[in-house]
C-alpha cells in the first residue's frame, strides 16, 4: 500500500520497524482477512513488522459530521461505512495488530462546538468500555479526546487515570480530537497546542506510551515530544512527498565537531549559525527502536488513483466532495512549507547536487535534484517513490535526533536549530 513495494520500504527502515495500519482501509475486507487468518501484516507482505491499528488514516481528511449512535463512519473506496463497536472489534481481531486504538468519536477540531465535544467524549467513553469488554487479542490504546477544550481534555484524562480496569490490557494512550486528519493538521502550530497537550497528557500515568497520529509539522512534533508524546507516524513526510517536496530542515545536533565535519557542514542548505549543524556519522542506522524513548511508527499512506464517490445520500455526496477537495489536490495546491524544497520548481532543472547535501538516503546517494525535478515535471511515478524515500529517511533521522536530544537534555537546542532555519527560509 502507499507508494512503496515492501523491498523499497526496507531500503529506508528496518525489517521489524513498527507500521501503522488504519482500520479504515480494511473495513470492507473483514471476510478476506478472516479467511486469510494470518493478519494484516502478512497479508500486506509486511510480516515481521509490528503493527499498530488506528481507526482512521491520519493522512486523509476524515469527513466531519457522520458519527452517530450506530457507529463511527469510515471512508473506503466504496464510500462511507458506519462501523459499530462489534464490527470494529471483529476487524481488529482479523487484522491481528500488536496494539490498537480504541474505537473513538474523535470528530473534533478547533472549530467544534461545546455540544460536539461533549458528544465526542460521551461516545468515546462508551466505545472504550466496550473495547475493553470485547478484549481478546491485542492490547488496546485508550483514546484521549476532548476537542480543543482544555477543561474537557483534562477531565477526560483524569477520569482515565482513575479507572480501575485491568491495566495489563492497556498499551497506552492515543492523543485524538485535536484535528480531523489530513493536510490541515500541518497548520497546527506549537503555541496553540501547548495548553491542550498539557491538559491531556499531564494527568496520564507516566509508565505507558502516548501516541499522536497526524500530519504535524516538525516544530509541533517537538512540542508534543517535549510534553511526553512517544509515538508518531509518517503522515507529514507523505504530505511533503505528495506536493513533490523534499525535507531539508536541519535536524541534527552536533556532538563533537571536527574540522572535516565543519567543512561538510558548510554545504548544508539551512545552516544554523549559532548552533552549527553537523553530520552524525555514527547515528545513521535506521530504526533502532528503544522502547524507553521515541518510537517511530511508519504510516502507510494511501494514494488515490481513481476516485470513488460515496454512494449514499445526495447531501453526503456534496459534503464528501468538499472534504475530498481537501484530500485530493495536495499536488495542485503547490503548497510548500519552510521545512522543505519544492522539486517542481524550475530552479532545480540543472542542479546536479542531491536533494540534501550530506544526506545518506538512497535517493541522495544516487540521484540529482535535476533528475527528481525531471520526474516530477513529467509526472512520472518514480518521483514520489524517490521523494518518499528521502523524506522518510530524513524524518527517521529527525526522530533519532529527538531521542538523542532528550537523553542529553538538548531538546531546546534542537528546537532553536529548527526554528531559526524556519525563520531563515520564511525571510527568503
Amino acid at each position, binding site marked *: 500500500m502507499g*507508494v512503496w513495494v515492501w523491498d523499497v520500504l526496507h531500503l529506508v527502515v528496518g525489517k521489524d520497524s513498527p507500521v501503522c495500519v488504519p482500520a479504515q482501509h480494511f473495513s470492507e475486507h473483514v471476510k478476506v482477512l478472516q479467511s486469510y487468518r494470518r493478519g494484516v501484516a502478512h497479508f500486506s507482505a509486511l510480516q515481521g513488522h509490528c503493527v499498530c491499528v488506528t481507526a482512521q488514516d491520519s493522512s486523509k481528511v476524515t469527513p466531519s459530521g457522520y458519527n452517530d449512535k450506530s457507529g463511527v463512519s469510515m471512508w473506503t473506496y466504496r464510500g462511507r461505512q458506519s462501523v459499530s463497536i462489534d464490527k470494529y472489534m471483529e476487524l481488529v481481531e482479523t487484522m491481528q495488530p500488536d496494539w490498537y486504538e480504541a474505537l473513538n468519536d474523535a470528530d473534533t477540531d478547533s472549530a467544534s462546538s461545546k455540544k460536539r465535544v461533549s458528544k465526542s467524549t460521551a461516545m468515546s467513553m462508551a466505545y472504550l468500555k466496550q473495547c475493553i469488554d470485547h478484549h481478546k487479542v491485542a492490547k488496546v490504546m485508550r483514546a484521549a479526546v476532548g476537542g480543543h477544550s482544555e477543561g474537557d481534555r483534562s477531565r477526560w484524562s483524569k477520569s482515565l487515570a482513575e479507572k480501575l480496569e485491568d491495566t495489563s490490557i492497556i498499551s497506552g494512550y492515543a492523543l485524538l480530537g485535536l484535528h480531523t486528519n489530513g493536510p490541515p493538521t500541518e497548520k497546527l502550530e506549537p503555541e496553540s497546542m501547548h495548553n491542550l497537550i498539557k491538559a491531556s497528557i499531564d494527568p496520564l500515568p507516566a509508565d505507558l506510551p502516548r501516541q499522536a497520529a497526524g500530519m504535524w509539522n516538525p516544530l509541533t512534533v517537538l512540542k508534543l515530544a517535549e510534553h511526553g508524546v512517544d509515538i508518531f507516524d509518517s503522515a507529514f513526510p507523505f504530505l511533503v512527498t505528495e506536493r513533490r517536496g523534499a525535507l531539508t530542515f536541519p535536524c541534527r545536533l552536533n556532538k563533537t565537531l571536527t574540522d572535516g565535519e565543519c567543512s561538510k557542514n558548510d554545504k548544508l542548505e539551512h545552516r544554523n549559525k549559532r548552533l552549527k549543524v553537523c553530520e552524525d556519522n555514527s547515528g545513521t542506522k535506521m530504526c533502532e527502536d528503544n522502547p524507553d524513548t521515541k518510537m517511530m511508527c511508519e504510516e502507510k499512506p494511501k494514494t488515490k488513483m481513481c476516485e470513488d464517490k460515496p454512494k449514499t445520500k445526495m447531501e453526503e455526496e456534496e459534503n464528501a466532495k468538499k472534504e475530498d477537495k481537501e484530500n485530493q489536490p495536495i499536488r495542485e495546491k503547490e503548497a510548500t512549507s519552510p521545512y522543505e524544497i519544492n522539486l517542481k520548481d524550475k530552479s532545480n532543472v540543472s542542479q546536479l547536487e542531491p536533494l540534501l547535501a550530506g544526506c545518506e538516503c538512497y535517493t541522495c546517494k544516487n540521484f540529482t535534484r535535476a533528475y527528481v525535478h525531471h520526474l516530477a515535471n513529467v509526472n512520472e511515478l*518514480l518521483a514520489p517513490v524517490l521523494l518518499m524515500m528521502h523524506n522518510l529517511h530524513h524524518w527517521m533521522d529527525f526522530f533519532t535526533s529527538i531521542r538523542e536530544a532528550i537523553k542529553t537534555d538538548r531538546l531546546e537546542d534542537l528546537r532553536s536549530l529548527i526554528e531559526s532555519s524556519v525563520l531563515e527560509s520564511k525571510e527568503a
Partner: protein
Amino acid sequence: MAAAASTISGTSAMASAAVSSSSSSPALSFRILSECSKSKARTSLMKLPHYTVELPMFMPVGTQGTMKGLLPGQVKDAKAQIILGNTYHLGTRPGKDLLNDIGGLHKFMQWDRALLTDSGGFQMGGLFPDLRKISLEQLIARDAPGYAIGGLSGGEEKDKFWPTVHLCTDHLPKNKPRYCMGVGFAVDLVVCCALGVDMFDCVFPTRTARFGCALIDNGQINLKARDFATDFRPIDEKCDCETCKNYTRAYLHTIVTKETVACHLLSMHNIAYQMRLMKNIRESIKEDRFVDFVQDFMACYYKDQSYPQWVIDALAAVNIILKK
C-alpha cells in the same frame, strides 16, 4: 540522429547512434549462437557499450528515463537487459545539454545496463510490397549495423502483418539484428521469433499493469475481478519475481487501480513475465526444441486449440504445424 523510425515501407536502418545515448561510431557487434533447424528463429549475442544482451529479447519502454515507478534495481530484478528511452521526449525535457552535463542518460537515471533511445513518431501506416522491396534494397546497400521493422504496430490486420515481417526477414542480411517495433503480446512475440526477429519493444506490459492486469501463460488476468478477493495464491506459482514471491492475488485485488503501488507490483511482474518468456524462447532454440516450445505455448494459450488463422498460417510458413 533519428534512428529506428518506422517508415511507410516497413523497414529502416537502425543507426548505430541510436544504441547508446552518445556514441557515433558503430556501437554494436552481433554474433549468432544457434539457429532453429526448422524455422527462422535464432539466438545471438549483441554487444553494446554498456552491456552484452542475448537475443531474441524484449525491451521494456521507459519513455521518460524511468520505468513506471520502479527503481533501477527492481528493473534489474525483473531481468531486463536493456530499456528504451525516447529521444524526442528526453530531448525536450530534460534536454540534450543537461544530459551531456551530467554525463549521459545512464548516469542521470542510474541505469548501468543497455539503453536504446528511439525517436518514436513517424507512423504513416501502409503495407505496400513494392515500396517495401525498394526500401529493403536501399537499406541493405547502406550496410547499417541492424534493421528495424517498423510501421507495423498501428493495429493493421494480422494477416497483413506477418507476411510483411516474413518478407523482411527473408531479405535482410542474416548477420545483422532485426528489431520489430511495438510488438509485445506474447503470441506475437513467439510468432515473430519464429519468423527470425531478434528484438522487440512495447508499452503493453506496463500499460496493462495500470489497468490491473497481470500476464500469465494463458493470457492475462484482471485482478479487479471479484474471483480474486479470497484467492491467496500468487499471480503465477511458477514465477519468481518479487511480486509473486511476496504478494497474493487477494491483496492485489484490494489495491489494483486504486493505489499506485499496485501499478509498480504488476509492472514488475509483467516485465519479469516478458523476460522469462524470451528466456524460454532462447533456451528452446539453443537446445533445438523451439518447435516443441511453440506448439506447447500455443496449445496452452489457446484452450481447445482454437488457434487464429493468422497464427496457423504464419507458423506454417516457417514449417511449424500446430497441434490439433
